[in-house]
């Protein structure tokens, strides 16, 4: 099914994950898998580009919570970029912007590392 997809691009030390479609309890494991793969390769500097993500539920938010400690313990971070208003609203409603930096633009996020 084409309901969720994730693609990856490595830009020097930073990895960008492009997520698209619907991120919910059904598709979260696929996204988790993609992050786990990065950590297995020792890549802890991660930007998630939300450009094509049309939906997120708390199961999707949970993926970010699940890895943040391990990532920061390894001097890395997850930075978020290119959210639509619809998706940003749910991050904002729960106060996630206090824990994760959210950028308008992928390039900005990459440069912050």
């Amino acid at each position, binding site marked *: 099914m084409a*309901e969720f997809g994730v693609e990856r691009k490595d830009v020097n030390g930073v990895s960008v994950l492009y997520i698209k479609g*619907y991120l*919910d*309890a*059904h598709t979260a494991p696929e996204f988790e898998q993609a992050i786990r793969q990065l950590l297995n390769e020792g890549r802890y500097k991660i930007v998630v580009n939300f450009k094509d993500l049309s*939906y997120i*539920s*708390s*199961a999707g*938010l*949970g*993926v970010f*919570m*699940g890895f*943040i*400690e391990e990532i920061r313990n390894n001097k890395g971070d997850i930075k978020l970029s290119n959210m639509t208003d*619809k998706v940003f*609203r*749910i991050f*904002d*409603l*729960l*106060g996630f*912007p*206090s*824990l*994760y*930096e*959210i950028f308008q633009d992928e390039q900005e996020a990459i440069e912050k590392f």
Partner: protein
Amino acid sequence: MDQKRGRYHLNTPSSSENLGQIRDFVGEIARKAGFTEEYVNKIQIAVDEACTNVVQHAYKGMIPKDIDVLVEVNSDKLTVTVSDQGRGFDPHSFPPLDMNAYFANLKRGGLGIYLIHMLMDEVEFMINPGRKNSVRMVKFLHPVESSERKQNQKILLEKSRERKRHAVSE
């Protein structure tokens, strides 16, 4: 034919693969009832959270039965009732979340019921383990100011804005 009234009922197996279908179902009705896309999305998320709980918790250690979604449209509101026939739970054992404490712990999960409260205007649980456990969620088409809830939501939003400022000034 009054487009603003009616009962819609959807029943699916309790499996996460059906969450998309349930969102489509509820979204289409909410849209026809006159909600803007922003509110359609909020209703969809709340229903998704309730159904995700059914999939993940309701039938633990049991033969899974189904997810039942009833949508009622009135002239002034939309009511969604998500029910399961699972083991039930005590909805009062989950105190309102303190998001600062939540983030300090860096734990995952535990956001669903909190989100449902944040997104909907009225939320009510009816628990009958093994028979019928329901969460009934109401969204008004033209929200009236005044309720305590609104007040709470404002405080929470202020907190969230504070945090954002914090993040930006990092």
